[in-house]
C-alpha cells in the first residue's frame, strides 16, 4: 500500500509527460520543453538554496554558460564537420556549468549569507556586461545561432524529437539529483544549511563541502541552459540577465524550497501560467510579483511545503470538519483574486496608450473601455464598486474561517505529536 502510494504520483506524472505531447500542437509542445527546462533549472538551483542554504542571485551565469557551450559545439558540428552524437550535446552545457561553477564556487563560498548572494550577483552581472562586447566568445549583441544536425537516423528537426530528448535528460538529471539527497554527501548538504558551525566542529571541511554543492548546482543549471540552447538553436547575452536569476528564484520559493519536487512544481505552474496568461494580459509580471510576495509573507514553505504537511498529517486532519472552512477559504481566495485582477486590469486599460488615443478622439473626455468582454464606464460607480464589494466579501470570509482552520490544524498537530510524530 505505502509503496503504491509513494510511486503512484510519480508514475502518473511520467505517463502524462510521455503520452501527452504527441497529442498537442507544436506551440504547446514547445511550452512543454520550456516547462521541463524550467523545472530542472529550479531544482538545480534549489540544491544550493533549499538544501545547502546558500542564496544565489546569479544563477543565470551558469544557465547562460551552459547554453553558450552547447551553441559553440553546435557551430563546430555544423561548420567544422565535427562528429559528435547530437543527443549528447546538452552534456556540453553540464560540463561548462561544472567548470565555471567550480572556479567561481571556490571564491563565492568563501563568504556566506548576504555576502555570498552579492558575490554571485556580481559574477552574473559581470558576464552580462561583458558578453555583448565579446564577439568571439558570446557572439556580441546578436549572440550565436546554429542548427541541430541529424544524427543516428533522427534529424531533430521536429519539436517532438527535441521534447523527448529533453525529457530523457531531465529525467536522468532528476534521478541523479534525487539520488544525491540520499547519499552521505546529500545529508551533509542539509547539515550545511542547518548548522554550519557544528559541522566545522565535527571536523568536516566546510569550504570544500560548499564548493562541491555549488559545483553540482552549477552543473545541472548548465545542463538546463544547454537544453534551452539545444531547443532554441540560439543563445545571446540576455541569458545572463538578472531577470533569469529572478525567475528561477521565484519558481523555487513559490514551489517550496524545503521539498525536493517543490521548485519543479513552482516552475511548471509559472511556466504554464506565463504561456496562458501572458497572451491575455500585459500585467502578467505584476501578478507574478504579487504572488511571490504573498508566498514570502504567508506561506514561507511554498506550495510544496503545504502539500507535504497535508500528506504528513493526513491521518490526523479531521477531513470531515475541515472541508467546509476549506471550501469557504477557496471561495474567498477566488473572490479576492477576481477583485484584484479586475482592478489591475481596469487600471491597465485606463493607463494604456490605446486608451489615451481613444481619449484624443473625444476631446480628452473619458470614453468607456472594454475588458473581459464587457464595456465599462470609467467614472461609473458600478465599475469600481463591483470589484470592491467582491474583494471585501472575500476578505471578510477569509478572516472568518482563518481561526477555524488554524484551530483544526493545531488539533491535528497535537494529535500527531501525541502519537510521537513531531514536526520534522
Amino acid at each position: 500500500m505505502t509503496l503504491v502510494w509513494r510511486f503512484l504520483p510519480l508514475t502518473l506524472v511520467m505517463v502524462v509527460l510521455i503520452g501527452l505531447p504527441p497529442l498537442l500542437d507544436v506551440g504547446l509542445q514547445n511550452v512543454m520543453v520550456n516547462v521541463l527546462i524550467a523545472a530542472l533549472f529550479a531544482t538545480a538551483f534549489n540544491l544550493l538554496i533549499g538544501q545547502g542554504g546558500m542564496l544565489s542571485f546569479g544563477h543565470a551565469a551558469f544557465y547562460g554558460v551552459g547554453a553558450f557551450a552547447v551553441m559553440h559545439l553546435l557551430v563546430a558540428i555544423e561548420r567544422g564537420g565535427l562528429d559528435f552524437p547530437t543527443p549528447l550535446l546538452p552534456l556540453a552545457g553540464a560540463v561548462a556549468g561544472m567548470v565555471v561553477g567550480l572556479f567561481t564556487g571556490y571564491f563565492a563560498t568563501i563568504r556566506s549569507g548576504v555576502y555570498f548572494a552579492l558575490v554571485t550577483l556580481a559574477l552574473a552581472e559581470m558576464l552580462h556586461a561583458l558578453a555583448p562586447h565579446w564577439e568571439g566568445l558570446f557572439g556580441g549583441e546578436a549572440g550565436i545561432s546554429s542548427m541541430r544536425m541529424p544524427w543516428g537516423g533522427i534529424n531533430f528537426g521536429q519539436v517532438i524529437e527535441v521534447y523527448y530528448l529533453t525529457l530523457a535528460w531531465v529525467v536522468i538529471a532528476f534521478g541523479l539529483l534525487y539520488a544525491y539527497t540520499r547519499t552521505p554527501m546529500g545529508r551533509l548538504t542539509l547539515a550545511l544549511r542547518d548548522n554550519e558551525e557544528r559541522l566545522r566542529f565535527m571536523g568536516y571541511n566546510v569550504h570544500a563541502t560548499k564548493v562541491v554543492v555549488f559545483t553540482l548546482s552549477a552543473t545541472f543549471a548548465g545542463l538546463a541552459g544547454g537544453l534551452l540552447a539545444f531547443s532554441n538553436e540560439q543563445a545571446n547575452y540576455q541569458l545572463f540577465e538578472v531577470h533569469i536569476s529572478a525567475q528561477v528564484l521565484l519558481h523555487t520559493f513559490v514551489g517550496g524550497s524545503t521539498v525536493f519536487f517543490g521548485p519543479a512544481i513552482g516552475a511548471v505552474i509559472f511556466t504554464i501560467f506565463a504561456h496562458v496568461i501572458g497572451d491575455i494580459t500585459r500585467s502578467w509580471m505584476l501578478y507574478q510579483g504579487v504572488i511571490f510576495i504573498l508566498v514570502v509573507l504567508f506561506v514561507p514553505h511554498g506550495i510544496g511545503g503545504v502539500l507535504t504537511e497535508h500528506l504528513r498529517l493526513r491521518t490526523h486532519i479531521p477531513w470531515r470538519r475541515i472541508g467546509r472552512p476549506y471550501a469557504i477559504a477557496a471561495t474567498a481566495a477566488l473572490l479576492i483574486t477576481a477583485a484584484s485582477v479586475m482592478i489591475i486590469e481596469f487600471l491597465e486599460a485606463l493607463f494604456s496608450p490605446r486608451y489615451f488615443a481613444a481619449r484624443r478622439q473625444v476631446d480628452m473626455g473619458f470614453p468607456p473601455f472594454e475588458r473581459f468582454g464587457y464595456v465599462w464606464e470609467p467614472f461609473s460607480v458600478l465599475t469600481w464598486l463591483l470589484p470592491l464589494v467582491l474583494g471585501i466579501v472575500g476578505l471578510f470570509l477569509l478572516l472568518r474561517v482563518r481561526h477555524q482552520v488554524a484551530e483544526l490544524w493545531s488539533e491535528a498537530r497535537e494529535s500527531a505529536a501525541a502519537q510521537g510524530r513531531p514536526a520534522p
Partner: protein
Amino acid sequence: MLEFILVSTLNGVVYGLLLFMVSAGLTLIFGMMGVLNFAHASFYMLGAYIAYTVTRHIDFWVGLLVAPVLVAMIGVLVERYLLRRVHSHGHAHELLLTFGLAFIFEELVKLFYGDFPVNYAMPDHLRFAAFTIFDADYPFYRVFIGLVAIAMFVALYLLLSRTRVGLVVRAAERLPVMAEALSHNVPLVFMGVFGVGAGLAGLAGAVAGAFFPTNPNMALELGIIVFVVVVVGGLGSLAGSLVASLMIGVFSSFAVGLDWSLAGLLSYVGLGEWARAVGGLFTLTLSSISGTVPYLLMLIVLLVRPAGLMGERN
C-alpha cells in the same frame, strides 16, 4: 587631453555624488537592520516618477519637495507592514521580500506610465550654463545635482553626529538590544531610518530623473551599481560610501572615453601584434568593458576585504 580630464572629472564627481545620494539610505539601512534592500533603487525610480507627475500638474519645485516625502511614506509602510512581518524568518526572507518588491514596483510603474521613458525634464529657468570650460558650456543642472547631494551629506552628517536623534540612531545601530533596554523604541527608530533612507533615494530620483532618462529600467540599472558602491565603501559606513561613490563615478566617466586595451598595453613590451592576433579579451577596449569594472571591483572587495574600504565589521 586636459579638456577631457577636466570635463570627465567634473561629470564623474557629479555622477558619484548622485550615486552617493541613493546609496546613503541603503548603507544606513543595512548598517542598522542588516537588511540588504533590493528595492532601494526602486525608491529612486518612484521618486523620479512622482516628481514627474507633480511637475506635469503643478510645478518642478513642488515635485522636488513632494517626491521624497511620499517615497519616505511608502518606505515606512514597507518596513512596518511587510519587512517586520518576515523579520522572524531570517535575513534570507527579508532579502527575498525586498527582491519581490523591486519586481512589483517596476511592474507598477510600467502599468501606470508605460514601458518607455517619460518626458521628465528640468524647468527652463534651470537650463543655463554654469560656466564655460574650453569653449564648452557646462550645464548648471549638473552642478545643481552635486550641490543637492553635498547639502544632503552635510545635513545627514550633522543629524547623526550632533543631535540627540542621531545619538539614539547610532546607539540603535551599534547595540540594538542595549538601546531597547534603555527604553528607546528601537523598532520605531528602524522604521524612521528606513523611511528617511527611502526618502533620500526618492529625492535623488526626483533631482536626477530630470537630467538622466526616467524609465522603468532605471531602478535595475542603478540598483546594482549602488550595491557595488555600498559594498566597496563598507556596508554601513556613510563616509565609505561617499568615497566609493566618487571613485566609481569618476572611473565610469573616464572609462567611457578611453579606448585602451590589453593589447595596447602589451604593445609597450613588444607583444602588441601577438595579443591582437589572439583577440578575445586582449582586444576589448576599456570603454566597451567599463560596465564590468565596478562588478570586478565589488568581487575583489568582497573576497579580500568584505568590510569594504571603511567598514568596521564583517
